[in-house]
């Protein structure tokens, strides 16, 4: 899915740290590249890949080995956010150029995640059926 880049961490063991927390760390570190993690969750082994540009998540993908369920884009992003903190697994962090990340997403547009930074408050409120609040809070 992504080109070979510069490995920042490889095969790092994660115990008690959820994928969501790893994602937060990448956001703080302003990663441009991707993280790939394999976690054993209550649903079985799951693979996740999330790409970032300057800490903003651009794409997400996840696959459950047992059920063969695949999620892309927003659904995968939410699966990452909601992964149980009882999960244990391994992760790789790879640095790429911004162009490489954009190209990989262009090849598989279904994995794209719309960063909140690209949306206005008005757009977010409208998407959740709260258009009437735009005037006061948008």
């Amino acid at each position, binding site marked *: 899915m992504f080109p070979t880049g510069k490995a920042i961490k490889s095969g790092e063991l994660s115990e008690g740290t959820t994928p969501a927390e790893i994602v937060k760390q990448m956001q703080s570190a302003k990663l441009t590249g991707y993280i790939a993690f394999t976690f054993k969750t209550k649903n079985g082994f799951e693979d996740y890949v999330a790409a970032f540009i300057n800490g903003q998540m651009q794409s997400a993908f996840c696959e459950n080995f047992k059920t063969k369920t695949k999620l892309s884009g927003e659904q995968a992003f*939410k699966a990452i956010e909601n992964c149980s*903190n009882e999960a*244990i697994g391994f992760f790789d962090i790879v640095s790429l150029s911004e162009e490489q990340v954009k190209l990989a997403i262009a090849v598989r547009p279904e994995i794209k995640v719309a960063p909140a930074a690209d949306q206005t408050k008005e757009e977010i409120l409208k998407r959740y059926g709260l258009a009437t609040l735009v005037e006061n*809070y948008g």
Partner: protein
Amino acid sequence: MANGRVIAIASGKGGTGKSSVALNLGIALAANGRKTTVVDGDVTMASLGVMLGLKRSPITIHNALMGEASVSEAIYDGPKGVKIVPAGLSLERIKRLDFEKFKTIVSELQQENEFVIVDCAPGLEKDAMACLTSAHEVLMVLNPEPASLADALKVKALAEKNGVKLAGLVTNMRMGEKAEIRNEELEKLFSCRVVASIPFDPNVKKAAATQHAAFVKYPESAFVQGISEATTFLLGGKPVKKVKKGIVRKVFESISALFKKN
């Protein structure tokens, strides 16, 4: 002691888990050695004393709000060294409460504590406004769905209008549903960080059913992990939660122990 921080736990909408967050956050702060009092500001629908199974609380914040007693008489011991000021259960007394006194009561507690956590009443009536304006900062608890979001935005607007800073967001009861609002969308709407994202955790109800705090009864639960994130944020320091040892590490440590020289 220097004046402590007064933090209102608010949501606007009822049922977001605000009281559970307020209570367990207070206990977590106390467990971390900070002198902390949690005040039940939901004076019409008291919950903190009930959640902890306080057997005898003859003097409550109701008495203080009616001028019948000082707040110091309404302080009770909770788990891990936290102090609790419960609300009363009487319907009759509610009519005689003077909400103007609430801010003074909280100020008195502020003199003696590092943290005063105010469990706010839901809604935007006198009781809720009294809680909100008694604090310097508000931690907003919301569920990742539109109704909760709408009410929380109103609370934010009122808080800011009254000079109360929005310190952070706590998203509670995440179910992992596709339609849930993302944390980064909430951060965009509120211009504020999500300091803890807590999944739905049945242990909270189980603890409440036995009148114990989840922090005490289920310390390894997902809910308590989330509370620890919020605690870390308030303490502005290193993470306070314990690292859970996985099977791999336990096995490794067991094998290492076999080779340790005595």
